[in-house]
């Protein structure tokens, strides 16, 4: 029985893949007169469906290790259904239905974690509902003008109407991708969600916001030019979007550096990575959009890999903070490689495809001559090396800082299988960046009526500003890696018993119980002393939202006093209102 449920669940997790491969022809479902839902797979939605098809089973596999939990499985299936609906939808109603199903089913999955507190749960659902209602308002506004809910190019709108639409939709999707200052819910929920579900949130659900943002060029096919005029050879709207993205990326990167907790660090890094995508979308050229799509693909794979690996570490040790871990490299070697590959992809370094994605986005910015943005992006991207380093050093190197870390063993096979698959995918994509361009990205660009990037061969990434050969780069890196490893192993034999790692850490001193021994303890704290960054890090939006909640509660309490318990007061109010209205109306003679 148990096994059958689990197998059924595993089968359900393949539904996005099934949809992706077997979908043919459009389906329509008439809800009401005038509201017909139409579903079809466009090139753009097919791309995101592919991400879902990859991610869903890979997260389902480790979920199978836990005790069979039918309601969690059902919610997961509903979540997948909602996401498929929203990707397939050809009209905004269907899109909204999918969007909301995704929102509430993910909320209920979030609640299943014992760590979820009231603030976390409330901020998750309220931010997402604000996003959904902005979307609804936007589509109703669109409907009031065009009398149509279909997702298609709108023309004949006034500039002001376009601006309203752009702002409504833009805000809705920016909340979903966690752009600053609308990101409050992201770190909380990624942090508190069940460990594997964090992978889903970060890798797949944030991509739905990206998908939404990608619909905007569909609605306004002649670029954002008409909405707001021009600045620096580009539309103002795009420029603003690009800056939102880059500010998000920069601040989130510094926030990530100062985190003490693995999942929170990954949450902020997600915000930052998605920020790059927003920037690229703001640029809006075919190179930049291609880069955005590539980044979406890589970020999905990387975050799946990292969150699943971290979930494995948390499962085996029970710790999530860096200062409680350490020295796991010898006990969890595969997980070590998982994180290693993950951070190389995350940092956008060659030879992994993260580099290709960043490269395309940089080239896009250069092409648009938005050099200030380019500089900011390079800054954020470089700063991200620090948290990447933290991520590999904290759990794996140094010495073990807790009894659990000393005795931990490698994660169970259910966790390792997705890790190995994802590592393989990342390496393969690193070798064949041209394949991704040719097979995955160019069809989308053609679907968006843009010039495809094109590639001479599958192993080559080529742009008009230069490119590189994936096989050659990977070959060089692999050779160097093998050489260094061999050298290290040869030498290691001699220095094996040179010293205990503790001696290194203590430097001969005798630490007290509360001395933080971990290398990473307090890392990033010094950032607060950097002038501008420190100011930003000290000022969070938490206070603002807490204040807003307090004010609403206070207003509610004040109005609530009207609802007393004495029937005479109720009647007195009714009679008074009657008398006052009658007098006013009689006097004014209405």
């Amino acid at each position, binding site marked *: 029985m148990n096994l059958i449920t689990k197998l059924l669940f595993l089968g359900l997790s393949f539904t996005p893949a099934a949809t992706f491969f077997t979908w043919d022809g459009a389906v329509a479902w008439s809800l009401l007169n005038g509201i017909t839902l139409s579903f079809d797979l466009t090139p753009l939605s097919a791309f995101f469906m592919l991400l879902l098809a990859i991610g869903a089973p890979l997260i389902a596999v480790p979920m199978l290790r836990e005790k069979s939990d039918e309601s969690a499985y059902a919610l997961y299936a509903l979540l997948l259904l909602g996401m498929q609906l929203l990707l397939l939808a050809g009209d905004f*109603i269907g899109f909204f239905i999918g969007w*909301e199903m995704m929102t*509430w089913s993910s909320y209920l999955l979030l609640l299943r974690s014992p760590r979820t507190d009231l603030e976390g749960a409330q901020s998750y659902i309220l931010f997402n509902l*604000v996003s959904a209602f902005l979307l609804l308002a936007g589509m109703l*506004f669109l*409907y009031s003008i065009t009398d149509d809910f279909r997702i298609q190019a709108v023309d004949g709108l006034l500039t002001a109407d376009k601006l309203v639409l752009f702002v409504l939709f833009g805000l809705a999707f920016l909340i979903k991708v966690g752009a600053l200052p609308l990101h409050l819910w992201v770190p909380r929920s990624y942090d508190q969600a069940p460990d594997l579900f964090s992978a889903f949130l970060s890798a797949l659900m944030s991509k739905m916001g990206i998908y939404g943002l990608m619909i905007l060029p569909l609605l306004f096919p002649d670029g954002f030019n008409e909405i707001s005029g021009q600045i620096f050879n580009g539309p103002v709207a795009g420029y603003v979007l690009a800056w939102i993205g880059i500010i998000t990326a920069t601040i989130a990167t510094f926030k990530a550096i100062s985190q003490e907790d693995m999942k929170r660090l990954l949450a902020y890094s997600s915000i930052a990575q998605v920020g790059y995508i927003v920037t690229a979308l703001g640029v809006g050229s075919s190179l930049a959009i291609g880069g955005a799509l590539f980044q979406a693909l890589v970020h999905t794979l990387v975050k799946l890999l990292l969150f699943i690996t971290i979930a494995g570490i948390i499962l085996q040790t029970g710790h999530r903070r860096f200062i409680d871990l350490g020295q796991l490299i010898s006990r969890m070697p595969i997980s070590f490689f998982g994180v290693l590959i993950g951070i190389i992809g995350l940092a956008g370094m060659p030879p992994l495809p993260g580099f290709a994605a960043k490269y395309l986005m940089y080239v896009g910015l250069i092409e648009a001559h938005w050099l200030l943005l380019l500089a900011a992006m390079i800054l954020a991207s470089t700063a991200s090396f620090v948290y990447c380093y933290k991520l590999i050093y904290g759990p794996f190197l140094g010495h073990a800082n807790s009894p659990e870390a000393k005795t931990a063993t490698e994660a169970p096979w259910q966790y390792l299988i997705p890790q190995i698959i994802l590592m393989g995918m990342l390496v393969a994509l690193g070798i064949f960046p041209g394949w991704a361009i040719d097979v995955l990205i160019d069809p989308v660009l053609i679907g968006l009526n843009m010039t495809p990037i094109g590639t001479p061969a599958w192993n080559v990434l080529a742009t008009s500003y230069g490119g590189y050969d994936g096989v050659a780069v990977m070959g060089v890196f692999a050779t160097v890696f093998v050489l260094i490893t061999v050298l290290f192993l040869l030498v290691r034999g001699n220095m094996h018993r040179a010293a205990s790692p503790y001696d290194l850490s203590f430097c001969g001193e005798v630490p007290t119980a509360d001395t933080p021994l971990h290398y990473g303890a307090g890392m990033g704290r010094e950032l607060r002393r950097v002038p501008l960054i420190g100011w930003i890090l000290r000022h969070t939006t938490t206070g603002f939202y807490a204040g807003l909640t307090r004010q609403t509660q206070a207003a509610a309490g004040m109005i*609530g006093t009207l609802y007393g318990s004495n029937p005479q007061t109720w009647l007195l109010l*009714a009679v008074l209102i009657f008398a006052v209205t*009658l007098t006013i109306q009689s006097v004014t003679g209405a």
Partner: protein
Amino acid sequence: MTLHFTPVWFIAVPLLLAFLAPLWVRWRLLMPVLFSAQVALFALALSWIPAVRIAPILETIVIAPPLGIHLHLDAIALLLVALFSFAGAIITAFIWLDNGAAHLRERPAFILILLLIAGSNGMVLTGDIFNLYVFIEIVGVSAYALAAIRRDKTALEAGLKYLIVGSVAAIFILFAIVLLYLQTGQLNIAALAQAFSNMPAQMQLLIGLLMLIGLGIKAELFPFNFWVPDIYRGSDPEITALYSGVLVKAFLFVLFHLTFILLADPTVARNWLMALGAITMIVAELVALRQNDLRRMLAYSSLGQVGLITLALAFASEATTAGALFHMINHTFIKVLLFLLAALMLRQYASLKLTDVHGLSRTMPLAAGLFVLGALAVLGLPPLSGFISKLWILKGFSDVQTFWPVALILTAALIEAGYYFRWIRAFYAAPTDAASMAKMEGEKVLNYAPLLVIAGVLIVLGVAPFLLEDWLQQAAQALLGREALLNAVLGVQP
């Protein structure tokens, strides 16, 4: 001999069955009769659909209108009668299958519930304004008595408060009716409608205000709805389900029926009623944020939804009206579901305070799951029917480019989410008192059967709302179609 079905059955059958109560007690058939009566009425209502689709049915009692009393069965009346009997069937089935609340399965409750249903049907069907008053009072008396039927301190307090407020409201309504009669010499609503515009403006205003306040109190509109939370908190949740699901809907119908019929140009009252609806909605949703008792919270949420329905109905356009009627139906389903869940939770938990129900999903997973379903539906989240009705309303407003109600409705839904999800989170949080949890008995699926029916309906109507679309459109036309009604009743062009 073939039985001749007439609309009067909707009123006569429950009354008759109520008067025969001693018989059912002797034969131990009280609950079966109560349940099957509702089911039979529901079936009867459904059997009328084809006939009403063609033309409304007039049932004359003794003399033809405008002199005599007549019942008027058109699409909207049929819709509401069907809704009332369906809700009644669900609630009585619940009371029957439930093993708690013995006082609800005895003769007084039996009679009062039937009276309440008969009165509500009468309010919807009647074409005579004094008859309307009589039905309002029948409903009122049975509602006051039902509020107090548990006969303990809280129930009696609720009953007394309800009685005081309710009878004052009835005096206001009676006053308005008296003034109408003195001015026109008519009691038939259609005949009154013709004469109404000939009255002096001051008198129109006075009558309108009296009616508005009387019906506003009964239909739970702000600022006349301060009584609601107390009554809903004190009465049995099964009874509150009847109030929120049946009673309020009947009064809302009367309010709008009279508005649309009496005023030749309903736009006169549009701004007033829309403002009332909007204020009711926002105030109730805000106050609900601070409620720590489940029943009080549900009461405020009910008020909020009434505000929304008022806002949409008052706009007096066909699209919003059809949507509002659909929302009315959905709201009945949802509130019946939620209040009956509250009843089930009360069996297990001494108090339904937010802090006391932490971890409820461990002992009552089905109840928690159904609560989530109801909450999602009331918030208007897809794929449940609440979404369709809200969308319909919003679409109706967007059709004519009126955006302030859209913004208000969405804001209200957001505030509503703020408290509903607080409760959901509490249900799924870790229990505060694990020791007492262990002692609780498990859930009996039989208790949940009526609730599962509602859940099924909510999902089906959410996926396939076109099933009801025609009927709702016709109902909206019937509610707004003043000329058609005057023609049908009086046989003349107004």
